[in-house]
Every structure is written in structure tokens, then in C-alpha cells.
């Protein structure tokens, strides 16, 4: 019965161009969003110009720093970071991985992607962590933010690119903006979860000895939530990287370029070279950030217990 109605309605909508006798009137949802985006674009034009200038500057600067030195220098520095975070094995592994990327002639693209990931993740975390703290401490805020996060996480990632392109045209900036929106949600969720999971008795102890709320946040809640928050950071970075390829469709520089290009030419060789470089970069970022999570004081203290 319901299905039948739905089908009828669906068909009617399909045929709705000039047929008005339907169960559900054609909702001009798309038109609404479009006008909203248009309105935002014209109204905040000046703001967006500033945002664009800043993001472009940041992107160009960091990309320059990663692409200008010879491959071996950057690769060694990154491998050293990996070794410091997670031990020499990951350092060596990273170096081999980077050599493979360079061997496939994707090094410059990989560095552009890394730049995009770093900038987008940093911005996403700058927004996500404070929002997560806010929602953890305020149930109303939590209820308010949750559906917004659901929306952001489930909306197909491509769709973010459209308003980003309308507002920022093509290039790295719409890529960064779309990536930030796409990657934001787990940052907020993990931060909120981490803080809410902190043993209530320890927070009570903070209050009981006369600590202020801010101090309890800094000295108790954030340190104890840190392993969970770091898992969120890891998720944000991983999502950013997955968005980077999609951002290639709007001309964002990086590993998305060869992938998108290969798709239009059905170039299997190029596609897999780009794709495999993404995988190597992803493993590098994942291992480094999850190793950092294990180095938080609380995680270390708990590890001592089981040792």
C-alpha cells in the first residue's frame, strides 16, 4: 500500500514537469539550496575573498616547503618523524614507501596532497575539538549538533564540492573547504565521547578539591580523553586523505589529478599509480598519528600498568 503510493508519487514526480495532479507536490529543495548558496556567495563575498587568500597562501607556502627541497631530503625528514613517533621500523618502511611513490613519478602530487591533508585536518580539528568540548559539557548543544554532524557525514562527499566551487571557484581552496566539512564530524564526535567517558568520580574529585571548571577540563578531562581524541584526529586525517582524491575533480592539485585524469581516459596504469600512492600516504599518516595517540601521558600510564 505504502509502496504503491510511493511508487505512484515517484512516478508522478518524474513526470511532474507539467503534470500537477500528484500526491506530493514537487519540492523545490534544490532551488532553495541554490538560492541560499547564491545569497551567501554575494553577501559574504568579501569574507570569502579573505578566506580564499589565507587558504591559498597557506597551501602555497606549505606546498613550496614540501616540494622545493630535493626528494631525498623531504623523504628523510618525514621518515625521521615516523621513526620518532613509532620506532625505526616505521621510519624505514616510510622511506621505502616514499621511494615507491617517487619511482611512480607521483612525488610532487603526493606532496601536494599531503599539504592539502595537513591544512584541511588542522582547520577541521581547530573547529572540531572546541565544538566537541562544548557538546560534551552541554547536553542541549549535544542534541543540537548531532543532526548537523549526521548530515555532514552522510551527505555524499561530491556534493560539498558544488557550493565550494560556486564560492571559491576551482583549485586548492574549494578542495580544502570541502575536505574540512567532510572530515569535521569524527573530530567532534570523538572529542565529545572522550570527555564524556572520563570517569565521573575523577571529575568529582576535581570539584571536591575546589578546582574550577576550566582547570578540571585542562588537568583532568582533556588528558584523560586524549587517547580517544587522538583516535578522532586519526579519523579526521584519514577522511581528509580520502576527500583529497575527490577534490581532484575540481582541480585541487595532488594525487586526485592522476586518478581523475585516468578515469576520463580509462588509463589503468596511471590510475593505479595515483591510487597506490594514496595508499602509501594513508598508511604513513595512519601509523604516525596512531603512534602519537599511544604516546599521550594517560595512554603511557595505563600501558605501564599492563606491562
Amino acid at each position, binding site marked *: 500500500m505504502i509502496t504503491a503510493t510511493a511508487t505512484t508519487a515517484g512516478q508522478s514526480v518524474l513526470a511532474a514537469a507539467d503534470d500537477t495532479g500528484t500526491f506530493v507536490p514537487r519540492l523545490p529543495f534544490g532551488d532553495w539550496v541554490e538560492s541560499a548558496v547564491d545569497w551567501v556567495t554575494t553577501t559574504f563575498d568579501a569574507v570569502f575573498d579573505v578566506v580564499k587568500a589565507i587558504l591559498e597562501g597557506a597551501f602555497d607556502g606549505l606546498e613550496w616547503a614540501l616540494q622545493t627541497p630535493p626528494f631525498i631530503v623531504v623523504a628523510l625528514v618525514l621518515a625521521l618523524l615516523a621513526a620518532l613517533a613509532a620506532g625505526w621500523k616505521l621510519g624505514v618502511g616510510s622511506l621505502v614507501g616514499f621511494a615507491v611513490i617517487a619511482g611512480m613519478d607521483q612525488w610532487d602530487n603526493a606532496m601536494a596532497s599531503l599539504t592539502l591533508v595537513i591544512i584541511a585536518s588542522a582547520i577541521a580539528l581547530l573547529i572540531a575539538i572546541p565544538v566537541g568540548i562544548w557538546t560534551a559539557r552541554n547536553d542541549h548543544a549535544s542534541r543540537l549538533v548531532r543532526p548537523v554532524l549526521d548530515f555532514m557525514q552522510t551527505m555524499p562527499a561530491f556534493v560539498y564540492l558544488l557550493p565550494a566551487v560556486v564560492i571559491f571557484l576551482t583549485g586548492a581552496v574549494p578542495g580544502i573547504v570541502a575536505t574540512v566539512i567532510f572530515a569535521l564530524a569524527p573530530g567532534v564526535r570523538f572529542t565529545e565521547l572522550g570527555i564524556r567517558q572520563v*570517569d565521573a*568520580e575523577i571529575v568529582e*574529585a576535581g*570539584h*571536591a*578539591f*575546589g578546582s574550577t571548571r576550566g582547570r578540571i577540563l585542562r588537568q583532568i578531562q582533556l588528558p*584523560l580523553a586524549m587517547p580517544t581524541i587522538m583516535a578522532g584526529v586519526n579519523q579526521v586525517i584519514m577522511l581528509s586523505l580520502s576527500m583529497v582524491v575527490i577534490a581532484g575533480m575540481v582541480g585541487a592539485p595532488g594525487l586526485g589529478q592522476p586518478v581523475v585524469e585516468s578515469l576520463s581516459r580509462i588509463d589503468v596504469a596511471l590510475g593505479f599509480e595515483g591510487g597506490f600512492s594514496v595508499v602509501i600516504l594513508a598508511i604513513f599518516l595512519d601509523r604516525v598519528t596512531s603512534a602519537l595517540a599511544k604516546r599521550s601521558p594517560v595512554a603511557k*600510564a595505563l600501558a605501564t600498568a599492563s606491562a
Partner: protein
Amino acid sequence: MPAVPTSTPTPGSTPTPGPADRSRPAVSVENVYKVFGRRPVKAVQRLTEGASRDDVKNLGTAAVIDASFEVAQGEIFVVMGLSGSGKSTLIRMLNGLWKPTAGHVRIGDDDLSTVDAKRLRALRRTRVSMVFQHFALLPHRTVLDNAAYPLEIQGMPREQRIAKATEALEMVGLGGWADSLPSQLSGGMRQRVGLARALAADTDVLLMDEAFSALDPLIRREMQEQLLELQRTLHKTIIFITHDLNEAMHLGDRIAVMRDGRIVQIGTSEEILSEPANDYVAQFVADVDRTRVLTAQSVMVPPADGTTYSATSDDSQYVEQDTPLAELFAPAAESAAPLEVHDDAGDLVGVIPRDALLEAMVPGTEPETTTEAPGSDARGAMGAPPTDEPALPGPATTKGATA
């Protein structure tokens, strides 16, 4: 519905507002209610009109109903009840972690229901500290830094607070563990850190929320002894929450028994054992080892003919009035004559015939209680507060009424 029976009326239940009154209680709780839920104020109103906890269920959960008591300086006051009886909520109102829905909680001169947030924090820093059931230590800080935490909050310079925290750790026997992490310690040791932290704060009031409940029985006993040992020198005002009656009787100068949010009886352990206020308390105390709680004083009867002996009078079997029953059986078995009970001064205050001793072993029957010798210490042997509260009626006074 009859009024809540308390064998001892709350000492000085009319608060004495005189300034600089030395006998002023360290903590006073006056008609305190705490209702969680949608319409707490309405629920309190109904409760004051005589509604029961179940009657107001749709308005909210009444965790604490009309609690009143005072705790004297230096007293160990135990609140005992099963889970859900409201004892944890009650203790959390004593340092303002929860705000009472109605009623007043006073720490010294400060009424917690009227102080602002800043003053409340100051009170927590300087007047009331707390020991938690699951220790509530910061896992990423060393034992020493945990113990120093309250001092850090108080704003004490680092060197000074390290010195003080070290001292507190030594007090609880953890001197060598300063640089360990809490996760490297056993449960009992962790709770010692919790205790050291509270002691380092150097507050006169100490709240202990099921502090030893998470420890295994042997360690628990050890911790109880340590607490009593420390209390002998520190004279803190301790409010101790527990669900374990034996622990309550062992530690408490006085005990408040809670049930379903109400305090059903307040008294010394002997009073609660020998004169349970209702069937609930009676059932509760049925399993207690009476021989360790009751003392000679509570089972003795007046000497036959008013003769007064002197302790110096040679031979015969006599016991001190605060001797636990457990230690009376041997001497009672040895002599056919009633045991003499002497007070601290060595004067005869009563005798214990064998049948009185046996009778006292049966829960539910009133032991034939004494009328105490005038002027002698009326308090139970478990010790009433060592301080100078004037109007505290001792157990014997109330017991005498039934004799």
C-alpha cells in the same frame, strides 16, 4: 505515619547560632531533601506533607528525605545503608557536589545552600576534602603529584606542596612510592594515596564515600585500623559512608542508618545493636557479632545492695566497663559469682550475672540495661566524640528509660 524513630534525638537539634561557640558542630544537616527529576520542589512539598517515596515517584526520585544530623568536631560519623538508600547523595551534599532541593547544610558557619560558586570552591579547598570509592586518582600523575593535587588547587608553591604531600604519603605508609604511577599500585595502596591526598589538603572535615568498599576484606580491615590510628592523632571530623554494618560499627562514634532516603536511626553502635529503632534495623544488625560491639557496661545490672567496692579490694573477678562481651566469657565461666564491672576510677558500677550475659547474645531482646551510675561516663565504649559537646545524650541515658 509515625515520626521517624531515632533512639537518640539529634544532639542539639536546635542549631545554636551563637558566634564563636566552641561546641558548634563541624557539620550540620538540617531537614535536607534531595529529589532528582522533573518537579523536585513539588515533590519535596508532598514529602513534607507526609507522602512516601513511592507517592512522589512521578514527580521525581527522592534520594534523600528530611535528613537532619550534626557531626561534632573530631567525631567519626558513619552513614550506613544499602545501595539506593541515598547515602552517596547525602555525602555529596556535604561538599556541594549536589545542591539540596530543600534544607540546609552547614560547614562551620557557611550554609552551602546560600554560598556562591567562588565561596564554595574556597570551602572545598580549605574545609572539606573527600576520599572516593574507586580512588579517583589521576592516572597520568605520579603518586606524589596526586597527593599534592589539592595543594596545587590551593595555589601552594611547588616545593612547599611537595613537602606536604610527601609528609601525607609517609603518614599513610607510602613514603617509598612517591614516583610510582597509580596503575602500578594495588587497590589498597591506591586508596592510601586517596587518603593521603585528602590528608594533604589539611581540611578539618573529611568525607569518605565507601572509601574501603572496593578493597578485599583483609586490606579493608587494615585500612580501617590505619584510619582509626590516624584519627587518634589528627582528630578530623570524618563522615564515612558504608554499606557494611561491621565497618560502620568498627569505625563509627555514631552511626546513622539510612533506608529509602530516610535516616531511620542515629546512635552509637551499641544503641543500634541493643535498641534497633524498627524491624529493618533489627534485621540489619541480626548478623553482627554482638560480642565485639556490646560492652560490659551495656549488659551489666545494678549491684545487688548498693555496696561500693574499691578496685583495690584484692582478688575477685572484675572487668572494665568498656570491655567487649567477647572478653567476658572466660572470666564469667571461672567464677560463679556475678562479674563486677568497674569504671575508670576503679569504682564498682554494676555486675553481670551469667544469665544477663547470655541474654545479651540474643538479638531482639532488650538486654537488661543499666541505669548508669550517676556522674560516670555515660557513653558507649565505642567512644563518643572526644570533644566537648555539651548536650549529647549518651546511650545509657536513653537505655535507662526502658529499664
